[in-house]
């Protein structure tokens, strides 16, 4: 086990280094000279050269990479070309909005998908199972942005309570309004994005839970439980469900990048002021420092999440033994 962990850790470090190199390479491909963005339009060549050396942009690429990555490891992703603020600070500023939306979406997805997947498996090939399977199929093919737009058109533009842009009404905050007023205000903004995120996220988890449950109910220990005369309810809750949930627990690792980097598409449609919207706006403003930080942090989260998923699997399932 110790050997496996070390091997896995080494692999992860190699992947992280690779990701940083790819990120750096893409940034180098960006058109236009960052100097033009950094300096005044009327800057003389001498001034430009000065700025170039100030940012270390006159050094050979490997040296630039080294300088860049050693700053990144200290948490310094450089300054935005547009606002001049540190990139990491800009991202952190947007993080709470993204975290809030995706956390609640995740809660809804798991709270619904686990029981639905379970019942679907217990009543395999029933009408319920067929409907769930079909809806999951539809969910996979439904373009997220179109679903969101259709919701805006059918509900958002007709129901006064529901807001379609932003995340809170100016002036309504915990200090000035009552608890329920603030809650209702936040909910009015969150409801549509949550529906879209939950619907598109549920398809996969439901199918996964269904497969996991189907796998478990055909195991010998379920037959044993049944043979010794346990009630069907006890078999399901005490034996089947607990084992079927094991693979689901590991999925939490894969939620990590979703929680933090959010959905670029959803944040754009609903003008949700999160990290994803910042990233998209940065692309259009050619603010490549922010763009690359977002790409790289997203990738790092995924790698960490996968590592976490592997570890969780080892922890929750004692049957897994590694040489």
């Amino acid at each position, binding site marked *: 086990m110790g050997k496996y962990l070390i091997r896995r850790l080494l*692999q992860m470090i*190699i*992947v992280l280094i*690779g*990701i940083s190199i*790819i990120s750096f390479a*893409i940034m180098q*491909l*960006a*058109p236009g000279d960052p100097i033009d963005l950094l300096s005044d339009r009327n800057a003389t060549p001498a001034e430009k050269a000065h700025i170039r050396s100030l940012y270390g942009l006159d050094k050979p690429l490997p040296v630039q990479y080294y300088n860049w990555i050693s700053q990144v490891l200290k948490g310094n992703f450089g300054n935005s070309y547009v606002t001049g603020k540190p990139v990491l600070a800009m991202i952190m500023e947007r993080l709470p909005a993204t975290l809030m939306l995706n956390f609640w979406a995740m809660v809804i997805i798991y709270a619904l998908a686990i029981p639905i997947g379970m019942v679907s498996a217990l009543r395999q090939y029933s009408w319920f199972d067929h409907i769930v399977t079909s809806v999951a*199929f*539809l969910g*996979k*093919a*439904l*373009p*997220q*942005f*179109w679903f969101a*737009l*259709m919701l*805006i*058109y059918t509900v958002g*533009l007709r129901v006064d309570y529901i807001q379609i842009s932003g995340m809170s009404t100016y002036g309504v905050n915990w200090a000035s309004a009552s608890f329920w007023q603030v809650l209702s205000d936040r909910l009015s903004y969150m409801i549509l994005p949550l529906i879209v995120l939950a619907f598109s996220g549920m398809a996969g988890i439901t199918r996964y839970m269904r497969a996991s449950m189907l796998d478990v109910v055909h195991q010998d220990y379920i037959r044993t439980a049944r043979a010794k005369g346990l009630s069907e309810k006890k078999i399901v809750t005490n034996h089947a469900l607990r084992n079927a949930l094991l693979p689901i627990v590991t999925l939490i690792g894969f939620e990590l*990048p979703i929680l933090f*980097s959010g959905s*670029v*598409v959803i944040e*754009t449609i609903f003008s949700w002021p999160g990290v*994803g919207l910042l*990233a*998209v706006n940065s*692309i*259009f403003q*050619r603010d490549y420092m922010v*763009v*690359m930080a*977002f*790409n790289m942090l*997203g*990738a*790092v989260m*995924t*790698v960490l999440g*996968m590592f976490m998923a592997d570890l969780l699997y080892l922890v929750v399932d004692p049957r897994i033994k590694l040489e």
Partner: protein
Amino acid sequence: MLAIKSGKTVSALEESYLQMVWRRFKRHRLALISLIFLIFISLLSLAAPLITQYSYDQSDPEHSMEAPSKLHWLGTDRIGRDLYSRLIWGSRISLSVGLVAAAVSVIVGTLIGAAAGYFGGVVDDILMRFTEMVMSFPVIFLLLTIIAIIDRSVVNVMLVIGLTSWPGLARLVRGQFLALREMDYVEAARALGAKNSRIVFRHMLLNCMAPIIVNATLRVGGAILAESSLSFLGLGITDPPSWGTILNSGRHYMRFAPWITIAPGVMIFLTVLAFNYVGDGLRDALDPHLKR
């Protein structure tokens, strides 16, 4: 019986395999309907100049944002372009982006997966770490980044979508190869002195065609969705417009002209759904272990 017609033994056998696949495929109702739908859409897109009255970029400001009528079957957009014509021409872009991007993705994924699984050891390590790197980036955003940086042409969009979506298949093919490598017939081929390339392409690859074909079919739908997301975010193909681009153009006029947004969305949804159902049908039909 067929085998008796001398000299045609092998092809007769192959034909009967395909016939079996077709027979099984037909039993999946939704897959069959989906296949017919896809053929229909492809024919429409090929016949675009014959079946559209207007060109996709012919604007008519006098008839801006008109609701569907006899003159304009699906209505017009903000500058009075005929939506039906735009959709039909757009299907050429969306379908070809889907098909080519999927092909790129399948070729790259299969080669990388096959090489990793067949050679194992260091080659496997390097290729799999590379696969994990590519897989880790936030896909839609990576696509946006690259398309924003390079020239936004149809070919580039196809290539970028293809080159960012292969990791899943590479892992799948690698897994198949790891299992196939231990098979007796591979050992036999090696003992007979067959070259690596012959073993890989003639023996092993043919034996994992089923999951590759299924994956390729699903990949087309995925690529169409990816392109439409790009277009939706404003970095798609505009001339002729893809379905996603048309959809995006109506986004801000939904209150007055919802048809601009509804029609292309329906097309994307149905097409992706159809590819997924065909993939599902093929999965059942191609799997020799599954008896239905």
